[in-house]
């Protein structure tokens, strides 16, 4: 009786959230697959079934492969740098006694800013004549965002700046939970510095770093704002990721079906990483 009443109450409390999520998250997530099987170009009133033709086109579309390559490079390079730098910052922060709040505020600011602000900030830092970067390099006039060889690295630096604090925070929180006695014991055994890091810190920090890596990979794969505003995919498509290509197809050439197909590709890659994450925490769950 009470159990049945509780269950009914449960559904009542869940209902508003499920309606919102059903209508605005689940339904669009399914609808995008349906859209990707169609030619839909509303301005020319084109709407007909395409089946897998858009995907067949993508398979031989050089622009798609270029965007996939840029996305992969961007993701691998920025996530690797974020994890390395994030761990280094966390290790630096660990011994902090005074001004921890100030330290965290300075660190987390980069993470909390809108990525459009970050993009505008870096656009100005990279400016050939007015940018701080060229000034610091001794008055050079390098066109960071206009040079096809430099634009992607410049973009990656901006993303690393923005996202590293997240990794640093996760690592820092984990480091604080390691009992100092472990290091004292290791010191007695003659292990200090690098050895203590290898024997104590690294094994304990690795699972957290793995979680941070998966989270960052998810975000890097679906990143859009920063490249769209900073470089717009240019120069010559060297920073055009799959997300930017999808956006262009959807809202600039107004090919709703084709753009959705690219969106589906991003979706599938992201969900593969998400499944890896669920497995990981599932494994921890089972171990606990």
């Amino acid at each position, binding site marked *: 009786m009470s159990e049945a009443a*509780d*269950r009914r*109450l449960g559904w009542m*409390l*869940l209902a*508003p*959230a*499920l309606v*919102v999520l059903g209508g*605005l*998250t689940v*339904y*669009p*997530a399914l*609808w*995008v697959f349906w*859209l990707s099987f169609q030619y839909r170009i509303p301005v020319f009133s084109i709407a007909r079934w395409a089946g897998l033709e858009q995907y067949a086109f993508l398979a031989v579309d050089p622009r798609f492969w270029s965007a996939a390559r840029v996305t992969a490079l961007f993701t691998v390079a920025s996530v690797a740098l974020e994890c390395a730098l994030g761990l280094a910052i966390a290790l630096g922060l660990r*011994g*902090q*006694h*005074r001004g921890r709040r100030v*330290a965290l*505020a300075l660190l*987390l*600011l*980069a993470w*909390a*800013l809108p*990525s*459009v*602000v970050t*993009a*505008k*900030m*870096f656009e*100005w830092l990279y*400016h050939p004549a*007015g940018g701080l970067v*060229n*000034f610091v390099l001794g008055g050079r006039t390098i066109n960071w965002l206009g040079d096809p060889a430099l634009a992607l690295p410049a973009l990656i630096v901006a993303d690393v*700046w923005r996202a590293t604090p997240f990794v640093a*925070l*996760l690592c820092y929180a984990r480091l604080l939970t390691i009992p100092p006695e472990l290091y004292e014991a290791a010191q007695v055994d003659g292990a200090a510095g690098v050895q203590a890091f290898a024997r104590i810190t690294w094994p304990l920090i690795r699972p957290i770093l793995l979680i*941070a890596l998966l*989270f960052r990979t998810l975000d890097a*794969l*679906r990143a*859009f*704002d920063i490249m769209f505003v900073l470089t717009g995919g240019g120069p010559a498509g060297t920073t055009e990721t*799959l997300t930017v290509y999808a*956006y262009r197809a*959807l*809202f600039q050439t107004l090919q*709703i079906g084709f753009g*959705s197909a690219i*969106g589906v590709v*991003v*979706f599938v890659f*992201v969900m593969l990483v998400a499944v890896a*994450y669920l497995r990981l925490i599932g494994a921890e769950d089972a171990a606990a």
Partner: protein
Amino acid sequence: MRAGRLRDGLVLLALAGYAGPFFWQALTSVRPDAELLPLAHLLPSHLTLVHYDAVFHRSLMPRALGNSLGVSLLSSVFAVALGALAAYALARLPVPGRRVMLLGMIAATAFPQIATVSPLYLLMRALGLRDTWLALILADVSFALPLVIWLLAGFIRDIPRALEEAASVDGAGRLATLRWVVLPLVAPGMASAGLLAFLFSWNEFLFAYSFTATEASRTVPVALALFPGVFEVPWGDIAAASLLASLPPIVIVVAFQRYLVRGLLAGALRE
């Protein structure tokens, strides 16, 4: 002792350097136009507020700030309200399939916006919601809700069951227990979840850029991305507008840091 203090100072200095791009933008926002291009000296000869004057009186920024504040406040309040009820049901009530639903929430936090933006755009157009606050609020709530539910379900599970049982022994029903026992205890968690939802909505660009058309609903990131330049790019004005766009995030990392950190850690590290 002194070495420790020196070390602390150096770490703070290094982190101030890390935030350097932001401070540079702040300096740019008060630098006279004539000293922007080319950059000849690190420090400006004098400080000026002309860029802020331009942003406040000759740009769409004030309107965009109002839109952003309204949309972000409303969507974070809705997300926390809907999320708290759902989280209580998933954490404490015998709803069939709740484990699957919770896993679904994590999966939904990973959905890329670029994949859902085209169906949502068609949906908003069909509902006649293009260029309205409501379109952005709905989109932002749906995007934040899975994370909010996931966070709050975890926080609610951390509350000792004994407290709720004591209330029910005293004759309180489920809803009264939720209202008078669970919600007050989980209030800091709701603050964390609400802050993250607010920040997400304040920073959100793709939905806002796609669903808005005029100043009636354009948010701060959209206004900043579209910041107009007549003959040349107004870098000083853009810097001033960026500073205004950064104010809520600054308040959050300075004044509400504890809640932000707690939310971020719980979102990432909880089982």
